[in-house]
């Protein structure tokens, strides 16, 4: 085992240090990443890769770093992007048959920023088709597997991105989170996943599932790595009208300042809310609750105080989410019609046949289900009863959080009610699958920043704890998360086969 492989197993900050000290070159690191990707191909984490391009870019990074001029903290770091974040000259299939041959001619805003920062995109990650799913089983490339137990799901829809980080293929990946699609898999795979405030990260070049909920975010092995990654990709983008105006804060600098200010009781004065609606015993794995309670204890020891709060409209979140998300999706996915790009059905009779068959053949059952549901929600006669009402409830959910954040700096909950379930366990039960996101969707409906980080294990599988902040409240979440990780080693644990020793 060479030092590049060892370094690859570390977190982003460790890899940065290794590159800057010249222990390993970017080229060696990227080569190790590509090797590891091959060795762990059975995970189904990465669905397309361009080794030649990655190696060429890594060589350039090697030169820059050697001459002491790295572009950023990410220069020379191998990363993967979820397949719905477009990259010029690379496929962007969204794991859908209808886009199986589509190559994007342009870069997403996030892609541009990452490449400008010197990050090396080594591959494109598997996902549930159009980000619709919670298990990454709904992909034309087959499922991604959980590195902790390949018979289990890695969660979804950003399952490929998360599995790649968990399995040590890359220290950093990007996914998208519409109802928990970064946090739920991060929880299942024992890594850190972060969904920024809505509008923090440009959606330009993110293939839309539900525009008012979608947000791109980082997946890494530590909270501080997520902060560092967010520093690079956040900020206003005039190509996205929902992008937050002005410059984004520098969260890494904020964390450094916080660390310098207080080494020990670094959460003195921080109040964290515990919503009673999220701590019900019913339907929740007791092992999950036990881990979360232990995390609460750790944070108390760090100086935080906890208060019980109430988010009274919690019970409506899943229903509200599936009305709004599917309504938007039914319209967002109308462009995949086989006319201008993507897969077109063969030997069509006429225009209607072209639409009908291209879309019938091109979309999976789950995607069709959501398109139909959303079409229904927006239909004349049902619009007020479903779409308009869901928007009103969304406002009530947002107000629940506004009220709660008057009394606390952050809110802590389990990320998911249970640990990673076996592959196939919920494939035939969409509702059970939807409930997997019960704790995560509210952050999307309210536009809040939210983080999931490892806090232990149940049944030998990782458990995640979720931190929610008020809009633009990323800094508080990063501080709390970092304080926790300074006192815990759950995020340092790797799946059995994380380094080198590939499974037979």
């Amino acid at each position, binding site marked *: 085992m060479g030092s590049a492989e060892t370094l690859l197993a570390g977190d982003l900050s460790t890899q940065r240090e290794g590159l800057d000290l010249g222990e390993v070159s970017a080229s060696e690191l990227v080569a190790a990443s590509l090797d590891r990707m091959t060795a762990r191909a059975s995970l189904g984490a990465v669905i397309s890769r361009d080794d030649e391009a990655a190696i060429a870019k890594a060589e350039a990074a090697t030169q820059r770093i050697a001459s002491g001029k790295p572009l950023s903290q990410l220069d020379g770091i191998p990363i993967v992007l979820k397949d*719905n*974040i*477009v990259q010029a000259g690379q496929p*962007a299939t*969204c794991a859908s048959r209808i*886009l199986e041959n*589509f190559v*994007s*001619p*342009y870069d*997403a805003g996030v892609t541009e920023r990452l490449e400008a920062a010197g990050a090396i995109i080594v591959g494109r990650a598997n996902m549930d088709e159009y980000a619709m799913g919670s298990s990454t089983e709904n992909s034309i490339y087959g499922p991604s597997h959980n590195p902790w137990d390949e018979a289990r799901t890695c969660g979804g829809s950003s399952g490929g991105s998360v599995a790649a980080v968990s399995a040590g293929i890359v220290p950093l990946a990007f996914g998208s989170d519409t109802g928990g699609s970064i946090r739920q898999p991060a929880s299942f795979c024992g890594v850190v996943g972060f969904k920024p405030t809505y509008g923090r990260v440009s*959606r*330009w*070049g*993110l*293939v*839309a599932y*539900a*525009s*008012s909920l979608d947000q791109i975010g980082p997946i890494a092995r530590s909270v501080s790595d997520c902060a560092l990654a967010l520093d690079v990709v956040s900020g206003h983008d*005039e*190509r*996205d*009208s*929902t992008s937050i105006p002005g410059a984004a804060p520098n969260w890494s600098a904020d964390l450094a300042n916080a660390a310098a200010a207080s080494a020990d009781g670094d959460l003195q004065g921080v109040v964290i809310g515990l919503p009673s609606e999220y701590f019900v015993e019913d339907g929740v794995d007791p092992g999950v609750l036990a881990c979360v309670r232990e995390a609460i204890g750790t944070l108390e020891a760090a100086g935080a105080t906890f208060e019980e709060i109430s988010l009274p409209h919690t019970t409506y979140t899943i229903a509200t989410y599936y009305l709004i998300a599917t*309504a*938007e999706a*039914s*319209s967002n*996915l*109308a*462009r*995949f*019609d086989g*006319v*201008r*790009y993507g897969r077109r059905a063969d030997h069509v009779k006429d*225009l209607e046949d072209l*639409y009908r068959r291209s879309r019938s053949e091109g979309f999976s059952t789950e995607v069709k289900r959501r398109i139909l549901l959303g*079409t229904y929600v*927006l*239909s*004349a006669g049902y*619009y007020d009863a479903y*779409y308009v009402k869901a928007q009103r409830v969304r406002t009530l959910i947002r107000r629940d959080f506004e009220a709660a954040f008057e009394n606390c700096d952050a809110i802590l909950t389990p990320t998911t009610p249970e640990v990673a379930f076996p592959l196939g366990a919920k494939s035939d039960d969409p509702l059970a699958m939807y409930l997997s996101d019960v704790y995560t969707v509210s952050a999307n409906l309210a536009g809040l920043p939210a983080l999931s980080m490892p806090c232990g294990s149940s049944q030998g599988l990782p458990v995640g704890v979720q931190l929610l902040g008020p809009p633009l409240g990323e800094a508080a979440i990063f501080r709390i998360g970092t304080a926790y990780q300074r006192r815990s080693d759950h995020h340092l644990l790797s799946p059995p086969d994380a380094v080198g020793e590939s499974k037979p």
Partner: protein
Amino acid sequence: MTSELDRYEVVIGLEVHTHLKTESKLFSPAPVRYGEEPNHSVHPIDLALPGVLPVLNERVVELAIRLGLAIHAKVNPYSVFARKNYFYPDLPKGYQISQFEEPVVSGGWIDITLDETRRIGITRAHLEEDAGKSIHDVAVAGRDDSCIDFNRAGVPLLEIVSEPDLRSAQEAVAYLRELRGILRYIGASDADMEKGQFRCDANVSIRRRGSSELGTRTEVKNLNSFSNVEAAIEAESLRQAELIADGGEVVQATMGFDPIRRRTSVQRLKENSDDYRYFPDPDLIPLRIDPAHIEEIRLQLPELPADKRLRFESEFGLSAYDAGVLTASRRLADFFEETAKACGVPKAAANWITRDLLRELNELEVELSEVAMTPDMLASMIGLIEEGRLTARNAAQIFPDLVRDGGDPATLIAERGLEAVSDAGAIDAFVDDVIAAHPDVVQQVRDGDDKPLNFLMGQVMKASQGKAAPDQVRRTLAEKIRG
């Protein structure tokens, strides 16, 4: 038209789609160009590639505000872009971004004048994007397929919807002319119908005269000239009247108009109204307009055609007809006004422009902006006439050259020897010669018949090669004949 229709009143509401005059498209940076090679003016946004997002072109908001103010409407400080969902190959996203429940402009009016002046209500004006163009013609598409040109996809449109206040095809055309004039005056649109920049759909129904209920309406789509609007409304209202006379019933439908056969025919029945599943576009934030900004634009708004017409009538003593002709475009109105002010004889300026200048432009098939004549040149020509240095007859002779090539009229007549003769001795000589040559005619005048005087005038003018000052000739003739 026929007795059948005489028993009915025609009720018309118009929907006008006008291209707003912008450099780039409504939601993409692609340039707006006409006559460009197909698909050469498209951006990934216009093709709805995966991951693209719309960004509102601020310029269209300015133009929409101008139109709102010009039609005395409310410019809404808050309006919302919505998605109108339907599948069509020339609609790249599978939805059109439009405004539905909350348009940018609502509740206005414009006055039109035929025999009397009538106020026509305008329900709303909203922003939306144009679609691409499907080309089914084998000759154009080059093969036995349909092709799509996305150059037009995303071009900004303002849809202006009138109340059902129009009562004849002629009123409909008058309304369209007035609206087009306003759009051009305020610089919101070139509104060139041939380029598809100003398109009209007409909602037509009929009802018994005296009834206040609205009949079932049909919508005649895609009328692309004023004469087609007029003919289509007449054909459709007649069709409806005949249908009812035969015991039939008008059903809601989208109609097409065949301009050659001058007939409307059903394209699509609207039994169930289309379900476009409108909802607010989550990719765009609501459009907020600061009332102070609206006031700023109000101050910069140019004088509108109707106001200018009234002012020309009162300030320059023009007839309503001349005022109408002269205000047809802002450039023509400015040309007139500058000429009138420079020469001090507005009526003469109006006459020269409405008759001679417009005829000349027509013959040359050019726009006013393309000719060399300036208001100053025309004014100095009129000045020469007023001073008696140029006769109207000789002015008409130099006018076409002056229009085409420009120049100083005084120099021009000097070069060509066309300066009027007003020297009494010279005119006496011409008059004496003519009297001597036509003793019979002179006798008739002496006997009290004035008519032949014009003949004698003509003879003198001819003898002077048009240079004799006509007033002076007339005076001299009268004196010499009647003493």
